[in-house]
């Protein structure tokens, strides 16, 4: 499953292979700010500087993306070159002398900041990225105290807030094109590109169509990589504050697994600190009436999706039903769901019909919970704290009203939640810990690991294997390492042996599964499906965002592979420490199937409330 180098030819690294063979060797001696060093041949000046703790300012550079070299912030002096060179793009292939600061360099960088500021409309204090803006940081770094080359005083573009998820404010755009590289190269969605040229260059959707009407999957990865506030999420917190203030409303917050692993970053903590208990306290202090754990409905998802898978396997193997689609694809990532609706509409039958945990929870809250607690569902406002921008779109899908109401009223990102906590005057890390509310206060570690790529698969296997064989999955401490890690596409299998009688048709089956994250990888998997290369596979997990939810479009900025790894670590640690680690063993899950979904997973009632249909959208825009 080797993937070709995805970056465009223009941005591929220097081809050092030939030089390597000439016997110069794999290392080269250079001088960096007067210090002699030996560095790997072909390594960029920027990487070398970072290895040596030398700060180089960057804007268009992003760890996750291919090199652009267009902002020109990272200029350095290379001896013998007439012009300054961009550290990000310059591969060291000969014994060069590099100076990362000099008056020439300083002046050039300052000029570049000056030029960007002259075109950057707005003021920092009225901006969502205030204090977390890369342009602002550079302005400070270079001591900008006036607009040397003027400053735009009038907005030139209309803000596009047509999308539920992503707002585009091109007056703040500095044309670093990280969003373009994110959308086209990293995610292979292809919504954003630069149009026109020269001074008229701007980032645009196809024919300037509003974002809501194009093939945007709402993953919000562009937001996470935008250095300014040109791209930001559509923030519903004003409406949420209003609902909280309204005494007639019963406002419920459900919190997804990954925001708790990352929200500490918004309060200055290093990545990888779990804030579950503090977050619960904060939500109550803000005024939410109940705080529930989305992991509960993640467990519910496992029950439904796992049962659906077993059902499909039975139909395919026992009934020889040719209409059953295998492998079954997960459906909890709304970005992925919209991706397949646009790009592979003819393959929608492969998707599990199970709703995502967010939407299941919404439906349960406005039906079962409303009945149990005697509250009119019309008065319930459900807010979902999600790591995700696409969840905002998902809760606004017209079909998501099986409770008779809008199942989930608002999708709130980690960043927006942090803002609400700050607005309430709270310092999250200093708050005491508290638990989730009942009746959905308990959840399994299986639900928790939904937050990371491979988590859904791992959770499902823990349950499916046990349902089929009556024994726990045969992995040390229930940790299925094959599902974990940041490899783009992972695959593995588990042999089903000594099955219980009900599932004897699976005896000896190698349960083969694939885990992919990032829609570029999803595309690879889908193309394999089309070519028939997924024959014999049973289950595929796909998350739209790199790293899964912990790298979601609603997560704290910045994000990078190393940050995502730390967030994932926090989640797996918390799973390891959980009392219950399998979805089907969650007592609340047993309770809800006994009390409400009485005909069991994938029964009639659950089908009405917990399953959904998809729309064949296609990729043509009319």
């Amino acid at each position, binding site marked *: 499953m080797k993937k070709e180098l995805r970056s465009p030819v223009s941005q591929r690294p220097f081809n050092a292979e030939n030089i390597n063979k000439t016997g110069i060797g794999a290392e080269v001696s250079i001088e960096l700010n007067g210090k002699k060093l030996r560095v790997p041949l072909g390594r960029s000046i920027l990487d070398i500087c970072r290895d040596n703790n030398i700060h180089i300012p960057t804007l268009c550079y992003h760890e996750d993306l291919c090199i652009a070299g267009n902002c020109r912030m990272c200029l350095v002096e290379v001896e013998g070159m007439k*012009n300054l060179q961009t550290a990000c793009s310059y591969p060291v292939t000969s014994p060069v002398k590099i100076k990362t600061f000099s008056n020439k360099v300083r002046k050039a960088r300052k000029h570049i900041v000056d*030029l960007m500021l002259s075109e950057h409309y707005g003021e920092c204090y009225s901006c969502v990225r205030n204090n977390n803006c890369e342009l602002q940081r550079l302005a400070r770094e270079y001591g900008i105290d006036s607009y040397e080359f003027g400053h735009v005083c009038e907005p030139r573009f209309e803000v596009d807030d047509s999308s539920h998820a992503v707002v585009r404010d091109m007056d703040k755009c500095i044309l670093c094109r990280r969003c373009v590289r994110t959308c086209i190269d990293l995610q292979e969605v292809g919504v954003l590109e630069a149009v026109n*040229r020269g001074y008229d260059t701007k980032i645009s959707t196809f024919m300037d169509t509003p974002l809501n009407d194009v093939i945007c999957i709402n993953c919000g990865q562009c937001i996470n990589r935008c250095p300014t506030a040109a791209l930001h999420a559509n923030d519903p917190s004003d409406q949420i504050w209003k609902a909280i203030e309204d005494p007639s409303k019963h406002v419920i917050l459900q919190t997804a697994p990954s925001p708790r692993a990352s929200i500490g970053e918004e309060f200055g903590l290093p990545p990888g600190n779990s804030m579950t208990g503090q977050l619960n306290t904060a939500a109550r202090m803000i005024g939410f009436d109940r705080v529930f754990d989305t992991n509960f409905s993640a467990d519910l998802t496992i029950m439904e999706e796992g049962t659906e898978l077993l059902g499909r396997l039975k139909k395919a193997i026992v009934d020889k039903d040719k209409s059953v689609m295998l492998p079954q694809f997960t459906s909890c990532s709304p970005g992925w769901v919209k991706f397949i609706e646009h790009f592979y509409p003819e393959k929608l039958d492969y998707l599990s019909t199970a709703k995502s945990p967010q939407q299941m929870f919404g439906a349960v809250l406005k039906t079962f919970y409303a009945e149990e607690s005697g509250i009119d569902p019309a008065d319930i406002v459900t807010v979902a704290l999600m790591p995700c921008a696409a969840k905002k779109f998902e809760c606004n899908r017209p079909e998501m009203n099986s409770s008779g109401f809008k199942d989930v009223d608002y999708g709130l990102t980690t960043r927006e939640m942090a803002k609400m906590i700050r607005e309430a005057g709270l310092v999250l890390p200093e708050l005491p810990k508290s638990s989730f509310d009942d009746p959905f206060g308990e959840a399994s570690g299986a639900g928790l690991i939904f937050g990371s790529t491979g988590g859904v698969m791992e959770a499902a296997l823990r349950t499916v294997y046990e349902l089929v064989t009556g024994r726990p999955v045969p992995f040390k401490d229930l940790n299925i390492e094959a599902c974990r890690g940041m490899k783009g596409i992972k695959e593995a299998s588990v042999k089903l042996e000594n099955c219980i009688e009900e599932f004897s048709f699976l005896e000896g089956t190698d349960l083969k599964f694939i885990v992919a994250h990032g829609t570029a990888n999803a595309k690879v998997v889908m193309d394999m499906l089309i070519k028939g290369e997924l024959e014999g596979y049973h289950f595929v997990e796909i998350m739209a965002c790199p790293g899964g939810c912990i790298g979601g479009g609603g997560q704290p900025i910045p994000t990078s592979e190393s940050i995502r790894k730390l967030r994932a670590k926090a989640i797996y640690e918390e799973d390891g420490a959980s009392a219950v680690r399998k979805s089907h063993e969650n007592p609340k899950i047993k309770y809800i199937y006994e009390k409400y979904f009485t005909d069991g997973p994938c029964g009639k009632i659950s089908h009405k409330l917990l399953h959904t249909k998809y729309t064949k959208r296609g990729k043509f825009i009319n």
Partner: protein
Amino acid sequence: MNKLFERKNRTGPVLFSEYEKGSAVKKALLTDRDDILLEIRESGLRGRGGAGFPVSVKWMLTAAANSPQKFVICNADEGEPGTFKDRVLLSEYPELVLEGMIIAGYTVGARKGIIYLRAEYSYIKDFLQSKIEEMRSDGNLGKNICGRKDFDFDISIRLGSGAYVCGEETALIESLEGHRGEPRNRPPFPVNTGYLGFPTVVNNVETLASVPHIINKGGEWYHKFGTGKSSGSKLFSVSGDCRYPGVYELQWGITIKELLDLCGAENTKAVQIGGASGICIPESEFSRQISFEDASTGGSVMVFNKNRKMIDVLQNFMEFFTEESCGQCTPCRIGNVKLLEGVNMIRNNEYSLEYIEKLKELGETMKIASKCGLGQTSPNPFISILNNFKDEIFGMN
């Protein structure tokens, strides 16, 4: 035949000298590749697009690259304002250009050549195509050229679509690959990672056209023309206020004064050397030599007489750059607009000398900070015109 493609009565030491069609290819294909490289090195031939990179080095690097595929690209995207020498070569001496490409392909080990012809010259395309067909049927193009079983080479023509920046070699390659014509980061250079990622030689029309003569008459012969560091001859596209505008083949090292006399210029105030991205030379410096060492040019010589206002020239050039910048890198995209704003401030007498100095400093940054040659040279007219015509411009109001 269309009179456009009739060869005019032209004379010159190299390009416009006598040449027997097909002779250089025949000779080259009997010569060892290394010997051709040596010959080119001895000639001292440097790129004629303006940058003046030694051709032998470019070819050697490409020849040395270990790759299953290589390309030779003829840069016929002659967009520099005031340049039209390539138009003359392509429409009157196409065999020189095509044979130059074949020899380049043979030398570096490429089997495919592409001519990137600017959209404004699309009327030349069919003519060139017919010349290519002619060479194919003569056995000088296609499989087993001149009977050599180990050498195939073919040439195709691609049209640009109206973008000056595509004359920059990496932007040209991007355009060929179906992208916006935005220059790439260098390094890696095209000789290492060029068209489709393969080693690629990109040469100007005039550079390639010089090759057959060098092959026929030798590098030493070629080196005798011109000055030491600028060897050979150069085509000059002369236009503006002179009696005989047109293309002249002259040796490097000619002074501006001599050139002005040749083209019948009188009452001259200034000469813009090297197009919009070049420098503007005042009367006091007309004794300067045209060469890589002194006043360098890709071929454009625009003559302005004493009735012309230099601020008009400057404004025209800066408008040109704001329109033709690809918009990719910050210094060029925004910097050129700031310089143009400065020109308009001067025009409207709403400037301070202090701010103009600041803009000149910005221009200096653009020269060293921009991604490609466009942004690196676009401040040239701003700085040179404002410096050389201070009295006229700042005293005008």
